[in-house]
């Protein structure tokens, strides 16, 4: 499908284009999940830890301690996968960084700053157990939580700028009149930031709650599991209920600014006369839509906030600037998967609290716990789908309307090798992380703590001092 894009744009694509896109998709898609934990987990640990201190609740303290260890593993691999991205910006996209580095770089610099704060306070927090005054120790989480907010804003500022570039002019092919602050605080950043930030709380909230839901399913119905479930679930609830609203508002204005993306989302090949239907499922082949379920008028409602305005179709976009069929289908399906899963999650949490209000505890029902176990993966898939939708939907542009992806990509021909190595390394890293976290939890269940030191079987006796 990417070959078709090459033909359409009629520019000889650099050999690095396709592998660079795949590489970026893999490494970014992987990193996003971990960055969610960096953003949302400290807040949850803070609530848990503070509860433990305030109520003198050893269960809560124990949970906070365990979560902090899990977050240490996740943060470590999140830090390295984030570093991978920093290198990739130059290795894969020299055409973007060489020309626009001075425009888009400032938010990255602030991101670096917040990442610094996060790393420092994580170090203090992790090593502060039993070594700092408890009331001070718990506060070390707050800078991490704040840094998570700022970091999210900064990264989303760059992405929002790529979607709606501003803060510079191009005169005779040269980038001039650069205003990096304007580029950073562009019109779209606030909503995109909100969408991602709330999404991070959905991912982490549902994932962590899901772990304890599995424990409850297996009959471990103690205070530890109930509390471990409820705190992240409350975070997930708020996030899941707010998210559809933000997502809807985020769509405003896309019809005039990024008509191709909207047309892809809605699978609108041709502009309708009068209100547009919403198309569920379906594929585009050679400009024709097959197999979709059309519900009249709802497309206009969703995209235009109106019952009568038509959604502008792909036919309003110049031929050379259109994504190819594969890209349209990808972003359409990804968009629908995101909306579908997001709605299901919102419905699920609403059901739980409604039932609770009616004095029914759904945690007693196995079907609900099973659903909760799947909610974490579902939130992750929704997040990945959202990113796929917005990134693929932007094609063929890297910087919308200014820089095409073919011109941003590296011309190196060996990037497939890099991609192959990356697949191997990331697979190994995933296996490693899962193995370590699983054996960690198994040990906790058996009432053991961590290995006293790496390699250190003989050190336990205290005879070494």
């Amino acid at each position, binding site marked *: 499908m990417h070959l078709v894009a090459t033909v359409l744009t009629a520019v000889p694509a650099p050999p690095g284009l396709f592998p660079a896109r795949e590489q970026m998709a893999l490494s970014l898609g992987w990193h996003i999940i971990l960055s969610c934990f960096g953003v949302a987990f400290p807040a949850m640990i803070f609530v848990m830890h503070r509860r433990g201190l305030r109520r003198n609740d050893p269960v809560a303290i124990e949970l906070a*301690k365990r979560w902090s260890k899990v977050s240490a593993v996740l943060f470590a691999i999140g830090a390295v996968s984030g570093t991978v991205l920093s*290198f990739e910006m130059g290795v894969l996209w020299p055409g973007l960084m060489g020309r626009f580095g001075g425009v888009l*770089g400032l938010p990255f610099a602030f991101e670096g700053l917040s990442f610094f704060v996060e790393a420092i306070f994580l170090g203090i927090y992790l090593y502060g157990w039993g070594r700092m005054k408890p009331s001070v120790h718990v506060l070390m989480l707050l800078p991490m939580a704040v840094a998570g907010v700022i970091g999210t804003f900064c990264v989303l500022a760059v992405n929002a700028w790529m979607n709606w570039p501003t803060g510079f002019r191009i005169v005779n092919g040269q980038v001039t009149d650069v205003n990096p602050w304007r580029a950073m605080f562009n019109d779209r950043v606030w909503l995109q930031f909100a969408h991602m930030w709330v999404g991070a709380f959905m991912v982490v909230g549902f994932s962590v709650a899901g772990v304890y839901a599995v424990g409850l399913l297996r009959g471990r119905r103690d205070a530890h599991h109930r509390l471990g479930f409820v705190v992240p679930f409350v975070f997930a609830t708020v996030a899941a209920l707010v998210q559809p609203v933000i997502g809807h508002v985020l769509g405003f204005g896309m019809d005039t600014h990024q008509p191709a993306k909207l047309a892809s989302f809605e699978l609108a090949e041709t502009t309708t006369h009068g209100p547009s239907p919403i198309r569920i499922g379906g594929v585009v082949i050679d400009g024709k839509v097959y197999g979709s379920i059309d519900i009249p008028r709802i497309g206009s409602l969703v995209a235009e906030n109106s019952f009568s305005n038509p959604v502008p179709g792909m036919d309003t976009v110049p031929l050379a600037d259109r994504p190819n069929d594969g890209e349209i289908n990808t972003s359409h399906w990804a968009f629908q998967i995101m909306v579908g899963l997001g709605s299901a999650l919102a419905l699920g949490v609403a059901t739980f609290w409604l039932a609770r209000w009616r004095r029914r505890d759904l945690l007693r029902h196995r079907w609900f716990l099973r659903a909760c176990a799947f909610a974490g993966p579902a939130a992750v898939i929704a997040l990945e789908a959202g990113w796929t939708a917005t990134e693929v939907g932007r094609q063929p542009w890297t910087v919308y309307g200014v820089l095409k992806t073919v011109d941003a990509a590296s011309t190196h021909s060996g990037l497939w090798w890099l991609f192959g190595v990356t697949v191997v*390394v990331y697979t190994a890293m995933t296996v490693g992380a899962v193995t370590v976290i699983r054996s960690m939890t198994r040990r906790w269940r058996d009432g053991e703590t961590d290995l006293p030191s790496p390699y250190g079987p003989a050190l336990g006796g205290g005879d070494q001092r």
Partner: protein
Amino acid sequence: MTLDFLVCAALFVGVVAYAVFGGADFGSGFFDLTAGGARRGAELRTLVDHSIGPVWEANHVWLIYVLVIWWTGFPATFAAAMTTLIVPMLLALLGIVLRGASFAFRKYAGTLRQARLFGIIFALSSFLTPFFLGAVAGAVASGRVPVDGYGDVWTSWLNPTSIFGGLIAVGTCAFLAGTFLTADAERSGHPGLADVLRQRTLLVGLGTGAIVFIALVPLLDDAPTLTHGLLDHGAVLIVISAVAGAATIWLLWRRRYVTARVTAVTAVLAVLVGWGIGQYPWLLVDQVRIADAGGPPATMVGLLIVVALAGVIVLPALIYLLRLTQSEAWSHADKSGTVDRTS
């Protein structure tokens, strides 16, 4: 003092900080690798784990800082270096990924077997990053990164300056780490371990010193602009570095570990700053001057604001963290071997 110069100086501070803090981290891999079998090496590996555990994430961020300031402040040269030096950059990156992940995995590993596997990956990958970043520095310093990028993928870093750059980086990191670990071992009441470390650090120091002297010969030919700068306006620093390096060896010999840390850092700082001054005014030697490489002025001002904020926000926090790791309360728990067993 132009904007470009100030931002470049801020960038260079990041390079130096990464080399010193991150370097000491990376060098610990050498001692971890040579610690011996699981039982015999446990004491040293525990020391490595305790001394870098709280700080390695923070130390790692210096690299991100460098990359970000580079691509924001001097975007064209960043693209040029990344396209030309793609191979060593990616190999350095591989080291970062394998090392960072396996260090964390080892710490929380479930079984000794797992810990051993992750430990080997951690130790071996600790060599990759300093070597290849040293090679990158050598490539830039010997004028092998063309202004338009896409220089030769192989000869740009397979050359005397780069190879020696890599070797010196590896040796320097190990030397720094050894000096710090020896002092840590002594301070935390492991005199036997301190003796072992002292011996190895002395060997590493002498070896690295020898490499530095040998390197001077091919460098004269291979990187004339740099060597000219080094022998001209950088000469004082090279002398300081040599004296401080020799003093470190002597202090280690005399078991003056705490003072040895100061001279070791001085030696490394001097050689790094000497390199920076020797290369001045070039950003990419023989290709682009600092004054001609800067991004838009508004962006440069923005970057300086970020740097100032970092000085206000990050620096105190970082100092606090470093002080904590050196404080009695923390090292006391280290000694009792109950780290993470407080539950």
